[in-house]
């Protein structure tokens, strides 16, 4: 196999001392139980591909893709070895070598054709305000929710400018389609009205901050936290648990902000056994929902059961993918409701 992208990570792979501390929080390892499923195991696999000691096979490809990119491994690693970035490079080399999942290709073609991950002609709720708002594919598809979230912004004094956006490009990067990502990024940039904007989606904001260093987006929760004290809010008197999305907590370090907002709107948070930067993943990231839905749902089920054990009625989160994955499991059990924190903010401002 021709190694192009992994080459750049040789030193990083040598930095990994293989201490196995990443076993502790790896959601895939917890489900599947073989060391090959852990972050260290995957680092060893990529090293094998890099050195040529390991031949790529369907099994190796599956293992390289069975990661939710939750970054728990990097967080627990004293040397902060960037396993998800290494895996993204490995995926890119595997794609170049012809190891392509039909499901991935289909998803990316949808983005190319329609600009969003659903492959649908979605019409953004255009607003001719001042501050550009990037909804992200998932909220673009949930148009009623998007309308409410835009109302939140209006109520806190922002005049949203909604434009004809396209996907931020995250799926291209995460699934290993680096060349196509470069092309897509150019198109994404063209659509942006300005370098400064507000982003509604946790995954988009993380990916944009990492992949478009020239841009200066703000995450919606930062803005709400800043402005909410200036408006009248209804205290909701709810007791919920809050699930930290990986991209927000570990990716951007935003752990306090959501909890502050919940406190401001009179919502008591009963914490899950793992929280903040140590929070367990829902299993929905890294393309796992497309690559291995069963595994993604098992991880979500584990997380949801922790929430149910707390005796709260509602699990609140911010990431629409967490909301989807956890929500799907919740609907089957009817023991807990999964909601977006923004829905509670809207309720408090109603």
């Amino acid at each position: 196999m021709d190694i192009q992208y992994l080459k750049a990570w040789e030193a990083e792979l040598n930095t990994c001392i293989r201490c196995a501390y990443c076993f502790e929080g790896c959601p895939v390892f917890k489900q599947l139980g073989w060391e090959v499923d852990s972050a260290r195991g995957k680092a060893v696999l990529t090293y094998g591909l890099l050195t040529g000691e390991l031949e790529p096979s369907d099994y190796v490809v599956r293992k390289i893709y069975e990661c939710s990119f939750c970054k728990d491994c990097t967080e627990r690693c004293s040397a902060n070895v960037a396993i998800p970035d290494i895996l993204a490079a490995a995926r890119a080399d595997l794609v170049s070598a012809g190891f392509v999942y039909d499901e991935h290709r289909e998803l990316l073609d949808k983005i190319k054709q329609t600009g969003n991950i659903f492959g649908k002609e979605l019409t953004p709720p255009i607003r001719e305000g001042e501050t550009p708002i990037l909804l992200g594919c998932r909220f673009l598809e949930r148009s009623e929710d998007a309308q409410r979230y835009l109302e939140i912004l209006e109520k806190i004094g922002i005049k949203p400018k909604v434009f004809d956006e396209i996907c931020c490009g995250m799926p291209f990067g995460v699934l290993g389609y680096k060349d196509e990502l470069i092309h897509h990024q150019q198109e994404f940039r063209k659509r942006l009205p300005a370098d400064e904007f507000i982003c509604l989606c946790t995954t988009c904001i993380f990916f944009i901050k990492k992949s478009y260093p020239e841009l200066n987006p703000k995450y919606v929760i930062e803005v709400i936290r800043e402005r909410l004290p200036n408006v009248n809010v209804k205290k909701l008197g709810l007791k919920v648990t809050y699930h930290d999305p990986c991209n927000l907590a570990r990716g951007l370090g935003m752990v306090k902000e959501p909890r502050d907002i919940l406190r401001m709107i009179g919502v008591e948070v009963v914490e899950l056994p793992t929280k903040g930067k140590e929070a367990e993943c829902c299993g929905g990231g890294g393309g796992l929902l497309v690559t291995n839905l069963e595994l993604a749902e098992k991880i979500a089920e584990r997380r949801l059961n922790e929430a149910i054990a707390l005796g709260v009625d509602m699990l609140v989160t911010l990431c629409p993918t967490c909301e989807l994955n956890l929500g799907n499991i919740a609907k089957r059990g009817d023991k807990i409701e999964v909601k977006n924190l923004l829905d509670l903010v809207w309720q408090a401002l109603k």
Partner: protein
Amino acid sequence: MGKQVDIKLLESIVGKDNVSNNPAIRYVYGTDASVHQSMPDVVVQPRTIEHVQEIMRYANAELIPVIPRGAGSGMSGHTVPIDGGIILDMKRMNRILEIRPEDMYCRVEPGVVDDDLNRALKPYGMFYPPSPASSRIATIGGEIGNNASGIRSVKYGATRDYVLGMKLVLANGYLVNLGATTRVEAAGYQIHRLIVGSEGTLGIIVEATMKFIPLPKLRCLGMATFDRIEYAGDAIADIITTGAEPSMLELMDHIAIKAVNTTLNMGLPDVEAIVLFEADGKVKEAVDYEMQTMKSICEKHHGEVKAMSYDAQERTRIYAGRKKLFAALSRYKEGLACTALADDMAVPYSKMAECAKKIHEVAEKYGVIMTAYGHCGAGVMHTKILMDPTKKEQWEAAKHAVEEIYNYVHSVGGITSGEHGIAISKAPSWKKARKDLLPVMRTIKRALDPNNILNPHKLMDAPEDWLTATPLRYWVKA
């Protein structure tokens, strides 16, 4: 090398899902945290004692090597299968079988993670003290096999001090109950103690009976800085010999300090050495007394005490740099990797500072970087060799450095390994120093494992040159 492994037969014992000879899985299980690499023929995850017995009966009959593996976090190559064979991944046998607070012991399966055991003991106000730094992932079986110890071993001892008994499957599949559940036992050979530190060469631990003790009510942690490492070494020796009772006494040299500051932005003082000292107990006056004693000793040896706190959060902050040091060393300098070589010698207290200086001197001589840190209160000095692992000449240099350091350590009455074990990479130096012991150990090994199938080529039977004992797990270029 034994015969080809019968995968179907293993599947019939443990079930299809618990056996794999997939090349990718074999490749992953062919390494650990050491520098070595060698692939097993198959990896098996037993779930029961009977599974282990049946696997051993088969392997013994067919002369197939069997290597038990916990987290695979060993630094000397304990679980790297030089001759291939069967890796027994014991992590699925991870039940805490019984906690008896009234009798102060618990029974656990070998795959129980140290931190999980301590989490389970906490509601009873108890703890299992000898936890190594890797307690978040280290399994009790692995800790017993290696006689693990850690930061609090200066006060509480090592794993061997907490093993009351165990169930052991011998090489021929025979299950034997060793030890007792009582604190004392005077009934013949203390074979369970022999198994502690035997590195998987004498039997497969399938259950362990461990004692535990009450959690201390108070802990206080202090940090002292020193402009010269000799002063820090003198302070450590003085603290121990004056009868103070630290529950932790750690040293970090300037390389260790730079590593955590660079990687973790810890902001530790830029000095030649830091000593962390802790006392714990039930009564504040008693803990205060210990802390003041240690503080005074540090100051007597030109140390400056920068922090002292009972507060849990503050203690976490003070200790954070030391806790994450091992991996942080990998970020010391671009292009250098942190290799686990000559990593845990123990020397007499009076030689601690001299040993640190010797390590730095040898490192300079051979063009590598070596740090000196560790549980100096227990006599353990950790080092790591930081080098460019892609360069062949760096490995040759490392080999000479390791040899010279161990020659020094042995010359001052020190030992090869304080807590990480011998396995492959430390065997040459250890064997050289303990020639008299090797025939005795080989006799014991032959008695319990006549076919030499249990983790062969380790300890006394390890190759004479660690550098060529197995392929290196790094990509070394010409």
